[in-house]
């Protein structure tokens, strides 16, 4: 049983997982059956991906198809395997979670829709990653997009769900159209719809430039790079939470995969490609997290963090491209390895966060964090898992987020040491940018965690929160474990990553040790352990002291005020106010602040809300303008028959005059 066969089996199983349920009268049984099949398929797929990563071999299978687009192949290589790992792992977790979060008993109308399209979505993604023919790729791509649309619009009786779904569908289709152009151009360059071997195309041609631009457009739209991210926040916010987790964890990574895969086909890459990707990455990262800080809808906030992390991944890719341009293999290795590892890491901790958020929303019935508070008491496990995710996404040691950012940082710094004016300048600039992103992320997540889980309940909803059921907690626990595992023992990823980078750019003749040499992953383990030991020591001492000395409970010190009420707690808006003010230039927040005139002001409230500025201030106005212009043209269809005949007449005459 080779890796490829395993993957193919997994694709088939996941694709069909939802079908039996359609014919079962007992919906709960159907859901469980579908989940079981899906999980089994995912496990098989994981086995396949892991074998590939272990062996580092590439397997190509020709498949017989009758479509007039040349031969068709599918293949599994380490680069793809990394993404397959993500697809199958997260898919399995979300499916299990769904049985608790979206039980058939409570949602008889929609459960089949969800299980069916979820399986289809998983399979489409896996197929997408293994496709080696442009047309097959496009088909998988669109099946993915469409099934995701149906999942997203599950609750289409809600108006904003409909809006989000429509926006998503339109943007994703625009991306697909841009990919039409890209694969056509690629066919022109390679002479066939089959993907040419990695590094076989010369990037210094206008054709290649066209491919690069269209790829950036098409895949960037899916990945949610600024300013193409407009669909992402509302989509992630309005989908059912496990779908949000899957979208944010995996779907947008498919855009990254497409970008990486299409870039892998080129050699002799011009510097400006790398710089473009790097700068776009920086913009997405900083702007994404800045927008996130302004949100107080839990899921919208997490969605903007997806944009941020996609930005970080793009920065890694940019570093790798710059490395190719200046011929510095260390940069290629570290940048791409960092990017790929961050794909994996973001998938895990973002899925974890969304699942935890789902549990919270399930318990409190609201997405508004200002209505939560004190949940750590009522749902301790969820709170703990969310904390793990939060620390990880902030890139703080000793969790996995740190490792991938560490790789990218080391890449940046080793680029800075090298020669080459422009490149060095941009790399040097991006290190502090990444630091800024990290700092803002910390600010944002301490806000979420503090306001939602700590303190005391701010509203009824939160007061009656209840801990999630086991089937919801188990996936979270698994994901949290992965976060810690990779964070403390990153060395186990060194081999796979190096293999993936190698299959991305065969020129880089690197294997496991080289990566560990370039970035001391072993030391990260040591430092992690040191941290844990120190913490353990202090904790032990602390506990000892607590045992030894009297411990009494009191009320929070209100600086003399003895009857604090929940409404006195700092809200998300007020927490973010200073930062939102600092970034008001790009955020355009809607602020309603009290105007204090008379000496003894009456009751007043402060609230700030950050809209999807790109959409509101750039895209919609343009579309509206275009629409008004077109309205003029629509008068041509005025119903006057004789003028219709005149059109015919004029066409005839014009053609005659043109001809003679």
């Amino acid at each position, binding site marked *: 049983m080779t890796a490829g066969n395993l993957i193919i089996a997994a694709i088939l199983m996941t694709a069909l997982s939802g079908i039996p349920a359609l014919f079962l009268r007992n919906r709960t049984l159907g859901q469980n059956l579908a989940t079981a099949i899906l999980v089994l398929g995912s496990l098989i797929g994981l086995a396949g991906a892991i074998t590939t990563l272990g062996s580092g071999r590439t397997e190509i299978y020709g498949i017989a198809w009758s479509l007039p687009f040349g031969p068709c192949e599918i293949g599994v290589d380490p680069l793809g395997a990394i993404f397959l790992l993500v697809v199958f792992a997260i898919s399995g977790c979300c499916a299990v979670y769904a049985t608790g979060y979206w039980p058939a008993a409570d949602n008889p109308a929609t459960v089949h829709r969800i299980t069916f399209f979820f399986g289809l979505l998983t399979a489409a993604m896996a197929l997408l990653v293994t496709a080696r023919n442009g047309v097959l790729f496009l088909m998988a791509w669109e099946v993915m997009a469409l099934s995701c649309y149906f999942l997203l619009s599950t609750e289409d009786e809600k108006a904003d769900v409909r809006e989000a779904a429509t926006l998503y569908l339109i943007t994703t289709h625009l991306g697909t159209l841009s990919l039409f152009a890209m694969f056509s151009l690629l066919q022109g360059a390679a002479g066939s719809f089959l993907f040419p071997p990695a590094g076989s195309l010369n990037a210094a041609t206008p054709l290649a430039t066209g491919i690069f631009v269209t790829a950036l457009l098409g895949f960037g739209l899916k990945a949610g790079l600024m300013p193409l991210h407009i669909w992402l926040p509302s989509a992630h916010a309005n989908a059912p939470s496990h779908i949000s987790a899957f979208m944010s964890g995996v779907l947008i990574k498919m855009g990254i995969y497409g970008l990486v895969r299409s870039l892998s086909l080129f050699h002799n890459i011009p510097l400006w490609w790398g710089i473009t990707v790097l700068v776009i990455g920086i913009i997405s990262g900083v702007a994404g997290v800045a927008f996130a800080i302004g949100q107080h809808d839990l899921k919208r906030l997490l969605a903007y963090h997806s944009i941020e992390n996609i930005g970080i991944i793009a920065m890694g890719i940019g570093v790798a491209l710059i490395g190719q341009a200046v011929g510095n293999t260390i940069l290629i290795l570290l940048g791409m390895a960092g990017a790929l590892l961050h794909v994996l890491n973001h998938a895990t901790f973002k899925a974890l966060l969304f699942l935890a958020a789902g549990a919270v929303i399930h318990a409190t019935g609201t997405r508004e964090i200002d209505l939560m508070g004190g949940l750590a008491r009522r749902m301790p496990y969820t709170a703990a898992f969310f904390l793990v995710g939060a620390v990880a996404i902030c890139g703080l040691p000793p969790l996995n987020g740190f490792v991938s950012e560490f790789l990218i940082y080391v890449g940046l710094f080793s680029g800075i040491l090298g020669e080459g004016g422009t490149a060095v300048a941009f790399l040097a600039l991006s290190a502090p940018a990444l630091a800024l992103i990290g700092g803002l992320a910390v600010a944002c997540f301490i806000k979420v965690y503090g306001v939602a889980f700590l303190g005391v309940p701010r509203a009824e909803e939160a007061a009656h929160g209840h801990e999630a059921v086991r089937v919801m907690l188990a996936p979270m626990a698994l994901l949290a474990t992965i976060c810690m595992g990779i964070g403390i023992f990153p060395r186990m990823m060194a081999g796979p990553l190096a293999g993936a980078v190698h299959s991305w750019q065969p020129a880089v003749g690197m294997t496991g040790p080289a990566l560990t040499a370039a970035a001391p992953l072993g030391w990260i383990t040591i430092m992690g352990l040191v941290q844990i030991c120190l913490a353990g020591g202090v904790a032990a001492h602390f506990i000892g002291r607590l045992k030894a000395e009297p411990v009494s409970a009191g009320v929070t010190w209100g600086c003399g005020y003895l009857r604090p009420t929940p409404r006195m707690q700092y809200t998300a808006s007020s927490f973010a106010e200073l930062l939102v003010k600092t970034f008001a230039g790009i955020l355009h927040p809607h602020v309603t602040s009290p105007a204090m005139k008379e000496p003894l002001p009456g009751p007043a409230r402060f609230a700030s809300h950050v809209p999807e500025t790109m959409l509101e201030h750039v895209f919609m106005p343009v579309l509206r303008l275009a629409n008004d212009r077109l309205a003029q043209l629509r*008068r041509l*269809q005025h*119903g006057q028959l*004789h*003028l219709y005949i*005149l059109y015919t*007449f004029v066409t005839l005459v014009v053609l005659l005059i043109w001809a003679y």
Partner: protein
Amino acid sequence: MSSFADQLLVLVMLINFAVLGSSRIALAIRAVAAQGVVLGLLPWLIHPFSWHLLAIMVGIILAKGLLIPWLLTGAVRKAEIRRETEPFVGYVTTLIIGALLTAFAFVFAEKLPLAPAHQGLLFVPASVATVLTGFLVLTTRRKAITQVIGYLVLENGIFIFGLLLTEAMPVMVEAGALLDLLVGIFVMGIIINHISREFSSIDTSRLTTLKE
């Protein structure tokens, strides 16, 4: 002989102007009928006699000269309308435009080579001019019936050209031409009746509910 054909063609073109200038529908119908008769005579002049030719002539004169005018007059009588009041473009203007179009037709005809047999004949300009006139009527008149007349003129123009090919072209294509003409007019006649029933008038400028 051929010069005489040319004179007839000039006559055809004059009839075009009559159609353009006439405000009374009855007159326009007669004019078209006359045009049909003239066209029916033309083949006689350019082709040697043959029974086949005779058949065609008779057929045309019957169809274009009698049957269709009869249908149209019937429609007019049903809808009780005498004259085309306020067309979209005034009569004088249409006449001028018609003149320009005729000129254009001659220019256009200049550019096209003729078969040796037809050198110096006015067939091409005449037919093009008539077609354009038909268009002009179609685009400038309000009443459905007048638009049908315009369509007839258009058909006549095409038929003029068809004469150049009478022997070259198999019968059934002419038959096709006639068939098309007849069926077209027939269906239109029916519809005109329905229009007058639905809208109590056959003023097509009222038919503008379907639009963006």
